[in-house]
């Protein structure tokens, strides 16, 4: 059953997928990395020192872009009601959606971090920690995004609101994730991964409850 759900969620969310899943968040991410040197000047040391943090901020903002089409369309179409009548809990549907959402944006984001790192003149060691940090942090970003998207799905203008709500919640991931670039001992990475895992465990329940609440409303 989870296989059927996941296959549909991926067909919908992957770039080129049915719901206009696109490469837009990725291009947005690269555009930020490209703009930054124009804004602060082309000094290699400055870019190398601050570039990792910029990539983190760009990744966080890029993760907000796909939220609009994550839950609300299915809620309007009555998909969750039909799933409920078939004994598929909202939590299961949301867990599948979380996995599909992460698969649809994170692997490509990690790939795009390579050209972005080149644009910002990041040394190889920084790039390694950056990639590990993004790998650890993006599931948490996906989890926050999903919970917020489910909460705001039944609201008008929910998309802009969800963007605003994600940012403060994502601050811990940003602090530890970007912070790991400055501390070579890996503790930042471990904390990022811990927060991420905790959020991934909670998000399907929060999102499922939000969908049930929207149904009653």
């Amino acid at each position, binding site marked *: *059953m989870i296989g*059927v759900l996941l296959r549909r969620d991926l067909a*919908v969310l992957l770039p080129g997928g049915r719901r206009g899943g696109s490469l837009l968040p990725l291009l947005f991410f690269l555009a930020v990395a490209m703009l930054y040197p124009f804004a602060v000047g082309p000094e290699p040391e400055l870019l190398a020192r601050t570039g990792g943090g910029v990539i983190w901020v760009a990744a966080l903002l890029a993760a907000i872009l796909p939220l609009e089409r994550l839950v609300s369309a299915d809620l*309007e*179409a009555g998909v969750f*009601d039909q799933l*409920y*009548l078939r004994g598929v809990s909202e939590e299961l549907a949301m867990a599948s959606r979380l996995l599909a959402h992460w698969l649809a944006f994170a692997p490509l984001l990690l790939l795009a971090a390579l050209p972005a790192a080149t644009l910002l003149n990041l040394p190889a060691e920084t790039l390694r920690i950056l990639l590990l940090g993004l790998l650890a942090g993006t599931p948490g970003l996906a989890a926050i995004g999903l919970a917020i998207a489910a909460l705001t799905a039944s609201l008008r203008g929910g998309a802009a609101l969800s963007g605003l709500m994600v940012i403060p919640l994502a601050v811990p991931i940003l602090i530890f994730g970007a912070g790991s670039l400055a501390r070579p001992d890996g503790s930042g990475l471990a904390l990022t991964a811990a927060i991420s895992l905790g959020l991934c465990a909670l998000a399907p329940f929060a999102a499922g409850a939000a969908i049930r609440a929207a149904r009653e409303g």
Partner: protein
Amino acid sequence: MQARLAAKDIACRRGDRLLFRGVSCALAPGEALHVAGANGIGKSSLIRILAGLLRPFAGEVTRSGGIGLLDERPALDPQASLQAALGFWAALDGTKPMALTEHAEALGLYDLFDVPVRYLSTGQTKRAALARLLGQEVPIWLLDEPLNGLDTRGVALAEQLVAHHLANGGIAVIASHQRFATPAATLTLAEFAA
């Protein structure tokens, strides 16, 4: 297992307004109930309460047997082809591909299998939702305005499907402001308005 659907003293509140109260019904295999009433009187809410999607303000509903719901939302991916959209539900329901094709042919949808759902007309979308319901193979059908958007032939088809479902020991609750040809007990919701 015998399919049953019974409601006892149901009341429904939306916001601050009590829509209806004291609604009871009991349906055995082969029986149908036509919920009649004007717009906004609570037909859809009653259907959702019977489905278990909405908590009644008072009273209780007992169901035995799977529930199929047909309402104004088709729950089919607009961007997907009709075949893919129906195929998702068929995979969840364990409908055999043969049966899916049969239902599509009976509903005149087979030629539309390659068409994205968003290009279908209102009536075609309704028929697609009926195909989804047929594939579910459940004894209890809850139909909210099943005739909306259907042409004369579509209406006849829907009525025929419901009659067939009842003849096979199914249960149907039909909420509609239109007349429905299938013989059914009528519940006039206006009599229970609070």
